[in-house]
């Protein structure tokens, strides 16, 4: 009897915790469908009528700046840098996991250690370089930096995924005369595909979320979605619904990607250490 009660009771506590953690997001979603007048009331209005005005405002039909260039920039920076990461990380992870070089753990640790180098440590020279090279406010500079930002994580994740590919199969392919590109494409990739997908997802999310580089190195032309959001930092109550709509729309790709790959996400973020 008490066991049943306790199990249900703790289940209830878990439900309560879930609701408390989700409440801010639910409230943000509800507010985004309110009119600005209904959004800024105290006490909060739960039953106010719903409208798409916040979204119309955000997408620029209300006269404000259009978010489309920023959304497109973010998409380009995230997708292209993720592809570059794959291109560089896959061969590296292959060398590290399937045909280990001498002192290979040292190489892995070097990759990991670059991730611990704070962004601010290189920000100024990169800014000065970009300024002198005329690359400020250029989305391709962000592509290069995001590639470097995600490469260490990708190498670590992928070497742990590739380590699961049986060496015997690779040796067999080699004996049959297959060269590295063929082996990678025909033998390794199919087996490691779920891991490669998870790695890509994480690189995409990190690039999409990044603010500091984008804030310092872009301006009008290459502005990304998070930089666009910083325009709301000092926004007053009048634009609450718009702020909520903007935050939700810009978070949507990450929310979708994250929900789709919950387990892989944590495994990737913990650099493959948690299985």
């Amino acid at each position, binding site marked *: 009897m008490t066991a049943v009660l306790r199990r249900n009771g703790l289940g209830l506590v878990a439900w309560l915790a879930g609701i408390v953690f989700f409440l801010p997001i639910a409230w943000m979603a509800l507010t985004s469908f309110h009119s600005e007048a209904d959004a800024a009331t105290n006490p*909060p209005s739960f039953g106010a009528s719903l409208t798409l005005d916040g979204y119309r405002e955000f997408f620029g039909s209300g006269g404000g700046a259009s978010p489309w260039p920023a959304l497109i920039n973010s998409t380009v920076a995230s997708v292209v840098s993720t592809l570059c990461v794959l291109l560089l990380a896959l061969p*590296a992870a292959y060398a590290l996991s399937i045909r280990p070089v001498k002192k290979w753990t040292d190489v892995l640790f070097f990759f990991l250690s670059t991730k611990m180098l704070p962004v601010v440590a290189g920000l100024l020279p990169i800014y000065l370089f970009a300024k002198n090279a005329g690359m400020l406010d250029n989305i391709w500079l962000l592509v290069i930096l995001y590639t470097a930002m995600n490469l260490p994580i990708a190498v670590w994740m992928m070497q742990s995924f590739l380590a699961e590919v049986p060496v015997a199969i690779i040796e067999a392919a080699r004996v049959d005369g297959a060269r590295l590109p063929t082996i990678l494409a025909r033998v390794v990739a199919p087996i490691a595909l779920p891991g490669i997908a998870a790695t890509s997802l994480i690189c995409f999310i990190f690039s999409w979320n990044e603010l500091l580089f984008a804030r310092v190195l872009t301006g009008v032309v290459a502005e990304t979605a998070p930089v666009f959001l910083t325009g709301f930092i000092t926004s007053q109550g009048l634009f609450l619904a718009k702020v909520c709509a903007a935050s939700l729309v810009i978070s949507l790709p990450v929310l979708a990607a994250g929900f789709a790959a919950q387990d892989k996400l944590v495994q990737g973020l913990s650099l493959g250490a948690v299985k």
Partner: protein
Amino acid sequence: MTATTTAPLAATPAHMTKQPSARLRAWATRAPLLPALVFMIAVTQLPFVATLVISFFDWNALYPKARHFTGLDNYHQVLTDAALRHSVWTTVLLTVAVVLASLVLGLALALLLDRRFRGRGIVRTLLIAPFLVVPVAAALLWKHVLYNPEYGLLNGLLHYVGGPQPDWISNTPLLAVEASLVWQWTPFMMLILLAGLQSRDQQQIEAARVDGANDWQIFRHLTLPHLRRYLELGALLGSIYIVQNFDAVFTITSGGLGTANLPYTVYQSFYQAHDNGLASAAGVLVVIGSIIIATFALRVVSSLFREEVSRA
């Protein structure tokens, strides 16, 4: 280049060419690693070397002609600057508070979710959501939608219980930033610890239960020791990300009210004050701090790693 010339050799069965190809084969093995390695060194290590060099110069971007070598002056200035020392303290406080609070909360939630109950999948999804909101968006949500003293949700809810309605960000600025970060990072800790809980040896737990151990004893003597490396990993990764936090500080308080941490201070000293030399010296100090964390961190990761290798 190396890859294309040596790949056919590497593909040659070992018994055909023994001696001369050994060195080439070694290079063929390393070749796939080189592009990534060269790229990483060029994009992350070179700028840091540049930062190091700049940190020895008195160089204000507004007066480029007055640039000159000053040795350790910038470091002296940074270390004796009260505002900067305060931002070091803020960074430590922010990191420790957020990591500890989200670890404890994450552990409690992981223990709850480790049990079977109706709708567990849904609750898990609800709990993960905060981690998946873009950091700037999450900070905006807390700043405008929750904390606002006039129409924020927090004070709106307090209205119903008749409590006071404080101005959260002005009254407790650092706590306001920390709370938003704890909300974002608790799900991450929960996910790591949940993975840890689910990798426990169930037979061992059953055996302990048969021997008459109660829930607390099982938790204290079996679960907690098993979770130790997961707790360490969570603390480590959390620290790496939160030490570098810029988004929340920048968005919620813009570094005001004593909440400027080191990354924000470095950003400000070159982006607004244009003092390249000082900013670089501060940046180098952030790196030294990070190296101290990283040394410890790498030890933890390498112990995890060794375990994995020996298991294989």
